[in-house]
């Protein structure tokens, strides 16, 4: 039987209260949202916080809304809500396409956007989605609020820019027009983590790619993206050969580890195939063709 090491449980009723509890317990305290990453780690004693601050009651952080020219997603929004959101589907299909293959419906009922990003698992899917879309996160502490670009958010595996005494409160994504987006993931079985996954968005101005983003997870891509491939595509007119070169650039730039999910050359091959598909489908969607 796996049981977490002892800790003190506290429940926060507001962001301010969560911040003051973090201040009171210091660096040995951890927030718990869905708990679907943290509790398994505590059961394995890979994490042993002295205090657990439950933020599931913070309804103020559970929302998806349009905020000016951005989409704003509260940190406590569950995976299931992201999957079902009409607002997100209207702007970016990448959200529903990624969520459909994140874990399983029961895990998606509990796991949250904020918990996913803060867990910073190197195979985490939403990190690739938000990296592709060039999102930014809003982080609050007792001394104020700051914003961090998603592409600067990950400091290392399981490490983020969120410090002790801080809470991620919101993720923001710019709204774009004439845009198409897509997510492509290969997993060993239903509900499993990616062997590799690539997400993309493309904005077309006529036939010219006027904006593009690529997100890559599970294969050691720096900042969950490939800037070289984006630069290759940006400002060019759509050509199949160029998309293939960009996809090959993603495959060459990532840094997959050899593990039970497969050897390195296989993973690189997957990245190139998935990048090509994600880009092609994004382009079709930006043209208004139904995929």
């Amino acid at each position, binding site marked *: 039987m796996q049981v977490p090491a002892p800790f003190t449980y506290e429940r926060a009723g507001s962001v301010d209260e969560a911040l003051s509890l973090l201040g009171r317990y210091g660096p040995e305290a951890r927030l*718990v949202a869905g708990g679907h990453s943290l509790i398994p780690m505590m059961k394995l004693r890979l994490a042993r916080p002295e205090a657990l601050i439950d933020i599931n009651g913070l309804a103020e952080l559970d929302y998806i809304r349009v905020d000016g020219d951005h989409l704003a997603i509260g940190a406590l929004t569950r995976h299931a809500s992201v999957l079902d959101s009409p607002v997100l589907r209207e702007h970016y299909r990448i959200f529903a396409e990624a969520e459909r293959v994140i874990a399983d*419906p029961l895990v998606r009922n509990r796991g949250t956007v904020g918990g996913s990003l803060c867990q910073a698992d190197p195979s985490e899917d939403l990190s690739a989605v938000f990296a592709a879309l060039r999102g930014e996160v809003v982080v609050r502490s007792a001394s104020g609020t700051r914003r961090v670009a998603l592409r600067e958010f990950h400091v290392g595996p399981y490490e983020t820019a969120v410090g002790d005494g801080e809470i991620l409160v919101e993720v923001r994504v710019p709204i774009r027009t004439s845009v198409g987006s897509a997510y492509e993931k290969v997993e060993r079985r239903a509900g499993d983590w990616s062997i590799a996954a690539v997400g993309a968005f493309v904005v077309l101005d006529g036939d010219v790619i006027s904006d593009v983003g690529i997100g890559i997870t599970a294969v050691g891509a720096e900042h969950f993206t490939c800037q070289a491939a984006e630069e290759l595509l940006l400002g060019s007119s759509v050509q199949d050969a160029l998309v293939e070169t960009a996809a090959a650039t993603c495959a060459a730039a990532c840094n997959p580890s050899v593990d039970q999910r497969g050897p390195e050359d296989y993973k690189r091959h997957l990245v190139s195939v998935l990048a090509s598909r994600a880009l092609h489908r994004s382009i079709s969607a930006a043209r208004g063709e139904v995929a």
Partner: protein
Amino acid sequence: MMKVQIEVNGKETSAEVDDRLLLVHYLRNTLGLTGTHWGCDTSNCGACAVWLDGIPVKSCTTLAAMADGASVRTVEGLEGDALDPVQQGFIEEHGLQCGFCTPGMMMTARALLDQVPDPDEATIREAISGNLCRCTGYENIVRAIRWAARHEAAAREQQSAHEPQGAAL
């Protein structure tokens, strides 16, 4: 230690528990409701699925403390005056062999049918994709859930036929 108060299957329950007690162990050990099964212990198999405020979750990955003040429904709470149609469906279509996955399957299935009364096979398979069965190969589980959907639809029809006719008719 802390005191939790959790409504389980419509009844208030309360106990002094360790802060680290998992909900699955609160249900099975503290309350003796062993219908909820405890399987992989790694958030994968769904044998421990129960409803937390109406939403199916894995109770091996939820603290009893997190359920304080909430309502929980377990497989023991499915049966009303008669067996729930989902339970009856598992009997009619042989939806179980060893039965280990069954409580979690049925809680997930009940939640699905409350949301989507007439799910097709793909929708059912997606809904139960967080519930693993090592015995049946899922075929009969899908049939069992379809059985429940059909019988609930028939029951609804019968009921509306007996209702007084409205102005539109």
